[in-house]
């Protein structure tokens, strides 16, 4: 607690929605300002840079759908990560889970003798299962042996990456690729339909939107959702309430990893039509989805917006490279700046500024919280300190 004249800074146990929005938008605006300075240093006026970016992405009939296309894997991974983060499980492994889904989808399409109409559903089912399986191991390690999931999920990404490399250089290497490291092209039955005139594989997009809606409902209206929320906010309290932490975390994590697996299916069946080098299957979507989930602040529906936003950032990088002839790292820098300012602004959410006129010398103890009831009577140290 600290006084600044008539103002007092103290902990804010539950920041209000509008304040979260203001701080998040402020952080993004700061990132844009900082990036603007970078453009300026590069010899391009920020105003010109941003208008070029806008015209080259949303203001262009052929480029605008590309924003949507890049948002699809970000949405699926991001919604999944929202689930995991709500259960206080820090899943950094969406990238690997996406690759696992991609492998399963390619495997089904190349080798499973299925009638044509069943191929795509089977690919999605296998992709979800493979992603979930990839997430299962770090979940069990955390639940049974208390292994830090940040490290184990991250490491699983590398295993997935090298597994894909091994497949495309070894047993799955295609006959028709002149020895280059790709599988053969998937049969046409495994190709997802595209929105006419675009490269948007709408089936995956619809899946992502449905998943966002479904998970929002699950969190808000079902017993499992309630359990996940309580577990995430206070594991000790959840145990007293009779919530099985093993089962709840496991379910949240399987959904999370499975969703990332679906994203992998979409990339393989909708875009590449074959399995190829892991850094070509996913352009770091599994990692960028962490920003998607963070920006969404625990809401699966908000993830739809934040995924579109990140899709826009990815597309903006493409415009900057071509139209402004900037170096390729510019996208990474843009993403990095946004994450930097978002995490930096997090502090602003845990504190609030209140106007508390200096009390008269004889009335010391009473300081009524004028705005809200929440947290007014809770002593500073025992508030729900870790609220996200």
């Amino acid at each position, binding site marked *: 607690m600290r006084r600044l004249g008539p103002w007092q800074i103290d902990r804010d146990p539950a920041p209000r929605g509008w304040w979260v929005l203001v701080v998040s938008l402020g952080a993004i605006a700061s990132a844009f300002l900082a990036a603007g300075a970078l453009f300026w240093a590069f010899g391009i006026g920020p105003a010109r840079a941003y208008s070029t970016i806008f015209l*080259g992405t949303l203001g*262009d009939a*052929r*480029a605008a759908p*590309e924003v949507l296309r890049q948002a699809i894997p970000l949405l699926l991974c991001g919604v999944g990560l929202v689930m995991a983060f709500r259960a206080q499980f820090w899943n950094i492994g969406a990238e690997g889970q996406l690759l696992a889904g991609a492998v399963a989808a390619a495997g089904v399409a190349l080798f499973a003798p299925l009638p044509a109409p069943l191929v795509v559903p089977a690919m999605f089912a296998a992709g979800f299962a493979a992603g979930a399986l990839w997430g299962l191991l770090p979940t069990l390690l955390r639940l049974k042996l208390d292994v830090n999931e940040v490290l184990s999920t991250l490491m699983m990404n590398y295993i997935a990456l090298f597994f894909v*490399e091994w497949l495309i*250089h*070894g047993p799955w*290497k295609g006959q028709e690729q*002149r*020895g*280059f*490291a*790709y599988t053969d092209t998937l049969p046409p039955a495994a190709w997802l339909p595209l929105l006419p005139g675009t*490269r948007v594989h709408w089936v995956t997009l619809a899946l992502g939107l449905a998943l966002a809606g479904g998970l929002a409902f699950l969190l808000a209206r079902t017993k499992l959702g309630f359990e996940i929320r309580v577990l995430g906010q206070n594991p000790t309290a959840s145990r007293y309430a009779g919530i099985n932490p093993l089962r709840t975390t496991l379910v949240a994590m399987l959904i999370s990893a499975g969703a990332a697996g679906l994203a992998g299916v979409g990339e393989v069946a909708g*875009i*590449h039509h074959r399995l*190829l*080098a892991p*850094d*070509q299957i996913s*352009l770091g979507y599994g990692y960028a989805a962490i920003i998607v989930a963070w920006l969404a602040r625990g809401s699966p529906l908000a993830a739809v917006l934040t995924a579109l936003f990140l899709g826009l950032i990815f597309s903006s990088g*493409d*415009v900057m*490279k*071509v*139209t402004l*002839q900037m*170096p*390729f790292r510019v996208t990474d820098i843009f993403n990095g700046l946004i994450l930097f300012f978002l995490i930096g602004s997090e502090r602003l959410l845990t504190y609030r500024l209140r106007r508390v006129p200096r009390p008269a010398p004889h009335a010391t103890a009473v300081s009524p919280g004028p705005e809200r009831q929440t947290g007014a009577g809770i002593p500073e140290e025992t508030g729900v300190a870790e609220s996200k």
Partner: protein
Amino acid sequence: MRWLTLAAVLILVGSLAVTGGAQQKLKAGFIYVGPIGDYGWTHAHDQGRKIAEKMVSGLETLYVESVPEAQAEPFIDKLIQQGARVIFTTSFGFMDGTLAAAKRYPNQIFAHASGFKRAPNMATYMADFYQVYYLNGLMAGALTKSNKVGYVGAFPIPEVKRHIGAFALGVRAVNPRATVHVRWIFEWFKPSAAKEATEALIAEGVDVFAFTEDSPTVVQVAAKRGLPSFSHYSPMQKFAPNHVVSGQLVHWEKIYVDFLSKVVAGKYTTENLQNVDYWWLLAEGAVEVGGDFGVPVSPAWKSKLQAVQVTTLDLGRLSVHDLVMKRLAQMTDPKVTFDPFTGPIRDRKGKLVVPAGKRMTVGELNTMEWAAPGIVGPWPKEP
């Protein structure tokens, strides 16, 4: 409403002005798979682009670096919006995207490096190193004392296998007892993996190095132990002047200048590229032997190569240095009187892969999977 109309008119006029200006000049767009600072494949293409811009009058160029394989099409869209009339895509993975774009833009010209699919408005081109690797192999075979030559390979794909094969044939041509030890790193650019592989090869007793990786790491690690090496793709002699013996250099500009001049002259159109396939080697000047431009053999190693004598069937007894120069002259000759992949050649399992008197065709070279005799180490997809 008035504002909207005004804005629409402005945009229309603006875009007309842009395309109007573009028709005066020829704009070419380049799509790169890696960063232009990689000191290998993409850097070399970018050097070629810059030289072509100077040499072809009226040429203006645009480029995009580090383009993911699936993104070729959207980037082609953007380059064409910028007024590009010729598009070069410089990685095998861009093949299908380039072909799809060529169908969508029948009025633009496309050229794809290292692929095999063409269209009336899409050509293919490649500058290949296998002859240069053979010359490097001759020198390596003469210089090894342990009879173990090392090769750090990027990916076990036909291109790299062909290069290691030619290198091993060269090594064996002057030193039948020598072996070529191969380590794969499964990356095009990864200095840490290249360093590890080089150190592992040193531990195996290897004392001369060649490699496929887009950084001077192998050269530097070998030089630290005082061991000679052959530079790859870019002039790396300056990184270890006393230890780089020779190497492989590329001149993509030869192809770019030739191609673009023919576009300017109206020889190449959007209708006659179906059979245009550049497969350019030493004779066309698209590749060069050496660790730096104009230096086929480093002066520091010349006398050592002159001291080693070998006997050949066609040239008799001569020093390895002279042999390298003779073979270079034969392959630079427009008639190409020598080629390393001339039969009879058996693979390392003893199977006859090139019959006596036959030369491997471009198609065979492009799909080559067998390992030449003397190669030691894993060889994925070995027939």
